[in-house]
């Protein structure tokens, strides 16, 4: 039997207390339309719950959205927890209201890409498809 193409699986999550998930849902739909299987966890998630869900779901990517300003702490914790659970190979990307000076710090901490407000959903989908090739 011939080797079939793997489906890309992505978990989209909103860590912390911010409850605004319109943006996250738009990304969920864009990735679905790009042919991916997207698991959405809903709002107000702890980093622990996000990391556990990512491991159980066997995803390739975790996309985090945060509009509250707590991104430095929350995103970094998700990355760290994934590594602790032996899932450091899961690629983390993020979006939301992220001030430019924070971006290099987050990237250094292991968030692969940050999509600030104004990013087109097509660019995000394209980036995921492109990055998936290295898996």
């Amino acid at each position: 039997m011939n080797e079939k193409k793997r489906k890309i699986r992505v978990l989209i999550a909103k860590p912390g207390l911010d409850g605004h998930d319109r943006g996250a849902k738009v990304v969920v739909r864009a990735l679905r339309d790009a042919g991916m299987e997207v698991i959405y966890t809903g709002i107000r998630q702890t980093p622990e719950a996000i990391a556990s869900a990512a491991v159980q779901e066997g995803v390739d990517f975790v996309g985090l959205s945060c509009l509250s300003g707590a991104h430095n702490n929350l995103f970094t914790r998700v990355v760290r927890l994934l590594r602790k659970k032996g899932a450091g190979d899961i690629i983390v990307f993020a979006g939301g209201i992220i001030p430019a000076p924070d971006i290099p710090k987050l990237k250094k901490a292991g968030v692969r890409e940050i999509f600030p407000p104004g990013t087109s959903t097509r660019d995000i989908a394209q980036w995921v498809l492109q990055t998936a090739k290295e898996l």
Partner: protein
Amino acid sequence: MNSLIVRRILGGDVGAAARLMRDLDDEIPAARAALRGLYARAGRAHVVGITGSPGAGKSTLADKLVEAARRKGQTVGVVAVDPTSPISGGAVLGDRIRMQRHAADEKVFIRSLAARGSVGGLSRSVFDTVTVLDAMGKDLIILETAGVGQDGIKVAGAAHTVLVVLSPGQGDDIQAIKAGVLEIGDIYVVNKCDHRYSEQLARSLLLALEGTAPRDGWTTPIIKTEAVSGKGTRELLDVIGAHRSALVSGRAWERRSMNMARTAFMELLETGAREFISGELAREKRWRRTFSDLASRRADPHSAARSALRKLLNIKACK
């Protein structure tokens, strides 16, 4: 390599189990070898299917059943199926939203699956995913189908106990006497029982089920729940447990298990046969004659299919 994976999974390694589930879902041949080692260790879990129309409350109910089962000290696996887009091949798997509060509980393993072209509310890899959870020692495995209409009955061959979830406001009482989904339930759940039409729904359901002969020594009950608040869900878990006891004492447990094995086996045979046949048909040259005979009405489809099957599958006597 494979035995290492098997050992890890049997030892409770969630990451290894999740990766194997992924490989099985993606139909990676090497994963099937690992499954062999797990299959022999599975077969102890109580598999409970939850089916019903979209929005009936299946995920919320599953969430509350997980809670109730954890309170009893049971370990739980959840497999939740959502539809795949026939257009993009993508899927939004959103059942988890309702159950996410159990994510950090080590005794709960929740896995979302996309149907990937399978019909009837299940995914092809559902059986394999259940096997992995079962081998990991989960006491209870909840199998939530994608929202189904009137013919989503496949879950009956994939679970020991089938819950059919209905909610008020989805049509008149004739809907309740149609065939299909209303014949496969071991337990009927009228969810959203706070709704003003829920009594009416329970009544027409009762009428629809009246006179149905008990199956495996079990008369199908109707349980009212309000999953959002948790009302009735602990009782529901007790009824699920009672169904299991009834199956075990009436020796129907083996029969159901056998039926589940048969369904999974049949699914693989059908998939294999379909892939083989479409592979054969892809060799167009060989079939051009048949197709043109059919198009020009020189041959009829039944006879042509019969003779093709005889040739392809080497069946001597093909009806």
